[in-house]
């Protein structure tokens, strides 16, 4: 076939083409077809390596079945509530780390950031008699300042984030020691903070929470569909919306129902969804909204995928990197808050051990350390997998060492799945 000179070729004016063909006929948008077509397309994507959190969900189910068989306590309501509060700190830290991991960066200081800011919080409240809300605000602002500091050195100066945050990881442990004192320990005396992990919502509020989740999900789905219709592009079949709502209803319903049963051991009945659950879900929702629907979120993915392409497209790469570190450190403060609420005290080693579990949570959930791929929900699911290992092995009275060995094995397995799926998706094993 010869390539005609432009003047000889037929002239397909836009209007003419519009009159004869709709957009959908020429180039699809992946939204067409029945539920079965969509399911096939999804399977196709999974086969091409876009597995998302599927391996983690599978792992969670398999581990849960295994522990349910091995321990009669695993499937009790009390253990279930316990699992959720055990996981919450890690879920929060994992979500914090997603913002920098999506850029292909790392924040090794996120754990000690949570610890250091909680040291500051507890000393301000216990020693200096600050109002707890003011102290919390100062802790959050300290998180912002730490993120600004890291972001400056990584995004502006150009030092690898591994090095900057490793330095802070060491330095902040020292600051914690200086603030708390060697061997020191402060009790958390703020009932509002303690109630995050230790108090429950009334039973009706749990169901109301589920209703709000369903309403928000339905609302955004319908809003998106209305927008697409206005733009004249096809929508996925509406059946998928109902399927999604059905899944939320079933999973959420089971969770709320289990938590609505009395799980007390003494005279006082204990029931309801722990307060930490709605807080975590709200942050998960807000973060996902930002990542999926705003320029800041899209540019995080773009910079993580190809920073040079993003720069040429006019994205302020330095600003995006910088802001992502600030978001990470600030969310790390909230994970620290969850942690002290659960533990009830702060010592000089606060947050020292948790950061690598946070990274593991993100990776196990399907967030790629190479950057550009992953969602907040993935880190939350990954954190649940790690929490279920800790929880289940604890019930089996196995030595603590086994916990670390199993968690490590799961992490390597997850990283392998990530690397292999990258190759199948057409990328290379090494970072380009």
């Amino acid at each position, binding site marked *: 076939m010869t390539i005609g000179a432009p003047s000889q070729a037929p002239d397909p004016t836009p209007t003419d083409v519009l009159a004869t063909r709709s957009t959908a006929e020429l180039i699809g948008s992946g939204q067409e077809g029945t539920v079965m077509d969509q399911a096939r397309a999804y399977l196709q994507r999974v086969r091409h390596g876009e597995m998302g959190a599927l391996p983690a969900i599978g792992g969670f189910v398999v581990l849960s079945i295994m522990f349910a068989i091995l321990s009669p306590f695993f499937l009790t309501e009390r253990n279930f509530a316990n699992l959720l509060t055990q996981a919450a700190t890690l879920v929060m830290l994992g979500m914090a780390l997603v913002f920098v991991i999506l850029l292909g960066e790392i924040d090794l200081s996120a754990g000690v950031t949570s610890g250091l800011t909680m040291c500051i919080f507890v000393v301000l409240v216990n020693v200096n008699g600050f109002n707890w809300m003011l102290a919390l605000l100062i802790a959050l602002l300290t998180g912002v300042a730490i993120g600004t500091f890291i972001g400056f050195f990584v995004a502006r100066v150009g030092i690898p984030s591994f090095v900057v945050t490793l330095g802070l990881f060491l330095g902040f442990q020292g600051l914690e020691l200086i603030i708390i004192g060697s061997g020191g320990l402060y009790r958390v005396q703020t009932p509002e903070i303690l109630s995050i992990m230790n108090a429950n919502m009334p039973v009706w509020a749990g169901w109301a929470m589920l209703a709000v989740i369903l309403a928000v999900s339905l609302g955004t789905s319908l809003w998106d569909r209305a927008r697409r219709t206005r733009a004249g592009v096809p929508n996925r079949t509406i059946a998928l919306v109902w399927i999604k709502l059905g899944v939320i209803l079933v999973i959420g319903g089971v969770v709320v129902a289990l938590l609505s049963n009395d799980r007390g051991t003494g005279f006082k009945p204990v029931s309801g969804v722990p307060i930490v659950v709605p807080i975590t879900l709200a942050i998960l929702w807000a973060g996902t909204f930002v990542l999926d629907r705003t320029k800041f979120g899209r540019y995080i993915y773009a910079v993580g995928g190809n920073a040079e392409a993003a720069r*040429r497209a006019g994205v302020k790469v330095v600003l995006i990197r910088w802001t992502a570190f600030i978001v990470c450190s600030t969310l790390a403060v909230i994970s620290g808050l969850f942690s002290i609420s659960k533990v009830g005290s702060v010592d000089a080693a606060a947050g020292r051990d948790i950061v690598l579990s946070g990274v593991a949570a993100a990776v196990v959930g399907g967030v790629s350390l190479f950057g550009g791929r992953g969602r907040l929900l993935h880190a939350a699911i990954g954190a649940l997998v790690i929490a279920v290992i800790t929880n289940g092995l604890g019930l089996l009275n196995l030595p603590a060492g086994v916990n670390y060995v199993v968690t490590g094995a799961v992490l390597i397995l997850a990283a392998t799945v990530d690397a292999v799926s990258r190759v199948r998706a057409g990328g290379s094993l090494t970072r380009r």
Partner: protein
Amino acid sequence: MAEAPIIELTNIVKSFGPVSVLKGVNLRAYPGKVTALVGDNGAGKSTLIKGLAGVQPYDSGEVRFAGEAVHLHSPREASRLGIEVVYQDLALCDNLDIVQNMFLGREELGFGTFDEGLMEREAAETLRQLSVRTVSSVRQKVSSLSGGQRQTVAIARSVLKKAKVVVLDEPTAALGVAQTEQVLELVGRLAEQGVAVILISHNLADVFAVADYISVLYLGQMVASVKAEDTNRDDIVGYITGSKTYNGVQA
């Protein structure tokens, strides 16, 4: 000349320290025409293009856009005028889909959030105007595309916002035979849309397949600007290597 050039460079000079890279270069590109820019390595092609893109402004010389004198001192200014450059190493994000890549940096917003439907429609329309049939869905991830498809997306991205001048830097360098053909067809259709295309290529077969005009840079000077139909391969090779001198009227 029937039509006025959309972009006209006159006596462009650029040096890096003591090294003089462009020594008074003239270049014109016409709407709806493909102007091939050829020359050996080090002739100054990249420098000339970077000036057009506003990345490295010229030291002196006149740039006229649609007859008006303009200063291309920043990429933003170039893109405001409608000058887009598609670089050789494609500036696409593998982890984003076609629509997201085409709109990267200029997303359509409504109520502060993405209007995905609008972006999807505009992307599909742009691809359709270029008669692209090689992609099945505008929501495909770029990682799943072939080299030719990626080049297609990069070119479509450049014309999404009604570009007047599109500079293609070696668009076929990394492609196989069939994909090269697809991309060259696309270059032709780009010109049909009224865009002035400046095509940089080392492959003279490609150049003669699509170019209306051929401009030859040799050691920082434009040694020939000719109509493709008035010349032949041997002459162009001669101008590129400096073994022949063009004596005709500069087209």
